[in-house]
């Protein structure tokens, strides 16, 4: 790795970490209700009483209901897109299985793409169906995190807040302003934003057009990741310069990292937030360095303006966070890079992870960790002043088992079915990696892909769609349940036997738990893919 590589890694880490405290403090202020000027009339439109709080069951039902309605709307728009405005290329209606996969993908914040945007979707579909879900799915994830923070601070209370208030505040005060600013900077750098028909050059090249910048800003900020174009942020119209690339990379990790600080503020113990961020960083940085180092010799599938270093940083950020956008083709990575990107997703998208969902996932791992530590010394475990008992452990177990189950069962079905293997571009161990990557990505709501795998078959669309739903809901609902259960408990005073959860010992324990759980579930599968390929390369 050259000096320039180290400098660029430093610039990236430095800027996004510098933003953690100011943005985190601002988001905490939003959730503490310090900004309310704009939301009063919104609640009247929605027909919601913002003062009426919900039990965890009600919160879950409203959360789920919003997803079902969103899914049906996306499905409806995509299956009828040829009759809508803003379709200068005359793209046809999508078949059900394809629309179903896209709808589940965008509703669950996965943004896996079985299509190439520039050859499939109208501008209306991109805006009214996909951009909306880019916001909604991100806000819904952050809402749960806030409910969980309330559950931790409240004592013997049956309610955890109002989903519609959390959703509205997140969208209006956090995501929309950030996206507006980022969109305009991206346009200045060369990202396109118009409603024109594709432009034909004198030499016969057809240049795609469209309202790209507004969607690209939120897909980076909201850990969505679904690209406006087929090759996502490798496309020069989606990511034209090294500066646009830096900003898009920072946007991937910005909110998930800052939420750690927000969480610390909300539970009135900032050290806890820093500890969670520290845990994420000690897992993330080594993988980032490994990917950059491993890819330093490989330009296949990479853009010259970014070079190998920015392709490596992006790959680490997008798989650690559940963003899933790409600026280089992961399918052409060397085995070490493939291994690292796969493994970061397999950790359950808790190292930064999705906005909100990454941190509530990490908190679930923290609950598992205090339980394991409690078992060692024979004490009832506590976390953040709350006793961790049977109900929390059941919910936490479901939440950490669902994603691996989705990944492994999905991969197993696909490798045995002709439609599952029919879409492979590469064969041998790398072919297995293509399928494993697809289901790891969908089963953890990431959305990135080994692009050689043509996943637009009925089997992969439907199976993948179901997996994305199960994996999103299978972690989210237990997290809301834990929030409700914790809210109902008394606060336990810190005693001599309480394991401090803000120090280096806990950070190491937590990081170890995350890595070991991931490794235990997936090392056999990884051995069949990237590991075999590495030996074949020699």
């Amino acid at each position, binding site marked *: 790795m050259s000096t320039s590589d180290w400098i660029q890694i430093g610039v990236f880490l430095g800027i996004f970490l510098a933003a953690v405290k100011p943005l985190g403090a601002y988001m905490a202020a939003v959730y503490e209700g310090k900004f309310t000027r704009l939301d009063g009339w919104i609640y009247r439109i929605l027909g919601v009483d913002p003062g009426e709080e919900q039990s965890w069951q009600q919160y879950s039902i409203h959360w789920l209901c919003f997803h079902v309605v969103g899914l049906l709307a996306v499905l409806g728009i995509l299956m009828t897109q040829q009759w809508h405005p803003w379709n200068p290329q005359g793209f046809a209606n999508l078949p059900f299985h394809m629309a179903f996969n896209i709808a589940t993908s965008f509703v669950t914040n996965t943004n896996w793409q079985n299509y190439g945007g520039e050859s499939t979707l109208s501008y209306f579909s991109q805006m009214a169906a996909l951009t909306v879900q880019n916001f909604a799915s991100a806000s819904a994830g952050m809402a749960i995190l806030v409910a969980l923070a309330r559950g931790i601070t409240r004592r013997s209370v049956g309610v955890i807040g109002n989903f519609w208030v959390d959703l509205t505040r997140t969208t209006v005060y956090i995501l929309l302003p950030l996206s507006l600013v980022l969109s305009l900077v991206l346009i200045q750098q060369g990202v396109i934003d118009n409603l024109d028909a594709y*432009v034909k050059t004198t030499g016969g090249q057809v240049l795609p057009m469209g309202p790209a910048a507004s969607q690209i800003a939120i897909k980076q900020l909201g850990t969505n990741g679904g690209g406006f174009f087929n090759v996502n942020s490798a496309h020069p119209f989606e990511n034209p310069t090294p500066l646009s690339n830096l900003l898009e990379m920072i946007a991937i990790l910005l909110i998930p990292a800052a939420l750690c600080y927000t969480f610390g503020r909300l539970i009135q113990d900032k050290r806890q937030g820093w500890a969670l961020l520290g845990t994420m960083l000690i897992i993330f940085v080594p993988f980032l360095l490994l990917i950059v180092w491993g890819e330093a010799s490989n330009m296949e599938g990479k853009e010259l303006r970014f070079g190998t270093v920015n392709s490596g940083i992006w790959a680490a950020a997008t798989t650690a966070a559940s963003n899933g956008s790409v600026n280089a083709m992961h399918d052409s990575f060397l085995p070490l890079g493939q291994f690292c990107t796969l493994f970061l997703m397999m950790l359950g998208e808790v190292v930064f992870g999705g906005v909100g969902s990454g941190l509530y996932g990490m908190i679930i791992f923290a609950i598992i960790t205090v339980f394991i530590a409690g078992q060692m010394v024979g004490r009832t475990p506590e976390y953040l002043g709350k006793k961790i008992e049977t109900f929390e452990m059941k919910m936490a177990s479901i939440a950490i088992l669902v994603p691996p189950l989705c990944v492994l069962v999905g991969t197993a079905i696909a490798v045995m079915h002709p439609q599952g293997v029919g879409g492979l571009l590469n064969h041998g161990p790398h072919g297995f990696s293509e399928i494993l990557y697809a289901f790891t990505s969908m089963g953890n709501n990431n959305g990135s892909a080994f692009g050689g795998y043509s996943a637009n078959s009925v089997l992969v669309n439907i199976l993948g769609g179901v997996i994305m739903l199960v994996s999103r809901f299978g972690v989210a609902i237990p997290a809301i349940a834990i929030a409700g259960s914790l809210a109902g408990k008394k606060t336990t005073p810190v005693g001599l036997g309480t394991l401090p959860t803000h120090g280096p010992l806990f950070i190491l324990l937590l990081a170890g738990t995350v890595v070991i759980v991931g490794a235990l579930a997936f090392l056999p599968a990884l051995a069949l893919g990237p590991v075999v390929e590495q030996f074949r390369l020699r």
Partner: protein
Amino acid sequence: MNAFMISVRALVFFTVLAGLAYPLVVLVAGQVAFRHQAQGSLIESGGKVIGSELIGQHFDQSQYFWPRPSATGAKPYNAEASSGSNFGPLHPDLKKPVVGMPRDLWTASGSGLDPHISLEGARYQAERVAVARRIPKVVVVQLIDEHTEGRQWGVLGEERVNVLKLNLALDQRK
């Protein structure tokens, strides 16, 4: 039932806010403030669009600089179907390194539309272009240097040469 009705109203509201108002505000602001970029950074001549500064084009005649290999669908540099090769390291069709040739010239880019080659990649081709055009090599090398973009702010990204702009400059040179 209550949850369902609120969900429907919320979705309609957020569709209007985030799906129409937000993209249209960005659209108008972008068109007003940065129209050239928002329209695709087009290179025009006499009212006709020659190409985009950002999107590479296919050149294979010896008097032009050649861009990186492109794996876009149907034909190279097809901007309607962006794509990388997606060949894994053991794929039989993956191009093998050519001794002495800068690596960007034998590896396919991620988008298939990469507008740039490296400075080494341009210099590597200078001899061929000079011979085909019957001009001294120093003139071509000088043109390359004039069209080399450094790292952004001296730090970000990689040093590079825009192939389309360089070829247009070659043609305009009289």
